């Protein structure tokens, strides 16, 4: 995905953050590591008040047949999962002391 990802009309306020609509966990995690705390705080602050509505919106569709716009919205929620740790716990993008540690995703559920 890219910043051309479109969102449902009711969620136009999240348009500045569509570059977080990323398909794989790896991309979402790397976006987190590459972001500043200010960027993540802004994303978090925009997303948190809308999260319940985002889930309600997406729940109206068959999970296996999500319209692209709802799917983008759900991918933003997945990216929020990643961004929440720096914001709520670490005050830095990386897990503290994690140095060069890394994790390879071998398989993940498709969306």
């Amino acid at each position, binding site marked *: 995905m890219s910043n051309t990802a479109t969102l449902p009309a009711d969620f136009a306020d999240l348009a500045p953050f569509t570059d977080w609509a990323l398909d794989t966990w790896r991309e979402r995690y790397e976006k987190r590591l590459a972001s500043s705390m200010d960027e993540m705080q802004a994303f978090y602050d925009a997303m948190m008040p809308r999260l319940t509505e985002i889930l309600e919106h*997406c729940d109206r569709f068959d999970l296996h047949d999500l319209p692209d716009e709802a799917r983008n919205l759900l991918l933003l*929620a997945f990216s929020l999962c*990643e961004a929440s*740790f720096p914001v709520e716990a670490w005050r830095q993008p990386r897990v*503290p002391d*994690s140095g060069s540690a890394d*994790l390879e995703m071998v*398989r*993940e*559920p498709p969306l």
Partner: protein
Amino acid sequence: MAHFPKPLEGSWTEHYPGLGTAPVSYKDSYDPDYWQQEIDTIFKKEWLCVGRVERLGRGGSYFTREFPWAKRSIVVVKDRDGTVRAFYNVCRHRGNKLVWDDFPNEETSGVCRQFSCKYHGWRYDLDGSLAFIQQEEEFFNVDKDSLGLVPVACDVWEGFIFVNLDPEPQQTLAEALAPLSEGLAGYPFGEMTQTYEVRSEINSNWKLFIDAFVEFYHAPVLHQRQATAEESQKLASIGFEGLHYELFSPHSMVSSWGGMSPPKDPRMVKPIENLLRSGLFGPWDKPAAVNDNQNLPPLLNPSKHRAWGIDSFVLWPNFMILFWETGWYLTYTYWPLGPSKHLFESTLNFAPPENASQRAAQEFAFSTFKEYAFQDANTLEATQTMIESEVVDTFMLNDQEILCRHHHAAVREQVEANGRPESYPWMPTPASANGE
């Protein structure tokens, strides 16, 4: 002060007298000769879990597993009648690796009707028998029946595929897993098919990561900042006590409390956890598959405590299954790559989500698991290098670390029984890891 009752002997450790209570050497976690003995007497002799049957869909589905510690590669394949078999990944003609893509040392998977060798085109059926030789008439005295792929002992327990590199395994899989084979049977593993699988090469001995996952003594300290400030203070002042420990030597288990899913007070958890109804213990809403934990297998939640949160089982020698009260399970597998290096693999397995909210709750459970796993892994390299410095020769293990003590002792027992104990004078010999 103890919050949960301990055995009459006063401690979990003394309940198994063979374990002893003395400080222990960790030379078993870097000595190269000892490592080789572990490979020869344990990893080449025991049943090893290589994955789930769900990875093999229709007949002809296969995956390969690389065992560099044994200089072996194996193919696990499902025949058209549903039988799962394993073979060494070696062509009988001139030894080319039979199944691989792009890079011969990388694992692969797929579906096929027959295996055909990239080198000269010999073909093998799914049951391993040799089906076709290119220009067969050019060979001398060919007996095709004797040229099938070399089989590896393979069996399935509750959907987990195990192989055994011993040409004549000393026990069946069910015998080797007893009493867990019966005591954990019936858990709805097969319904938890929404799987995340991760792996990481870690610069520590394989046993050190098992140590990190069989004690929760570290949790209130190492993972302190993952909780809210108030909660982490409380956790740190209380520390950790297991609900129950049990040795089924060489297997073992620890049962631990939970109670945060959902929490009594929403302020006990981070804001996003309240919105997604999920966290380290997984999604707060149980899937139908676990039937509100009404029919758990007999070995789960052994203390029948209402605060039960998670049971962690070590399935000898290198496999763990963690059962969460919230209705999902986690696996860890540790593959030795050298005295100071191992490959860590983990799967998170959930019931398929029915809607986006459930899907997001699972995604957050994965995200959280990974934050903890990073913290757990981080300490390992730091520990490995310092035990190797040999500045300190024995280390302290407390009662909540009984499974660390036991697992190292069980390894030692098998190495000594089959190897050369006189080579390891630094090992204090326990009467028996079995104790009791």
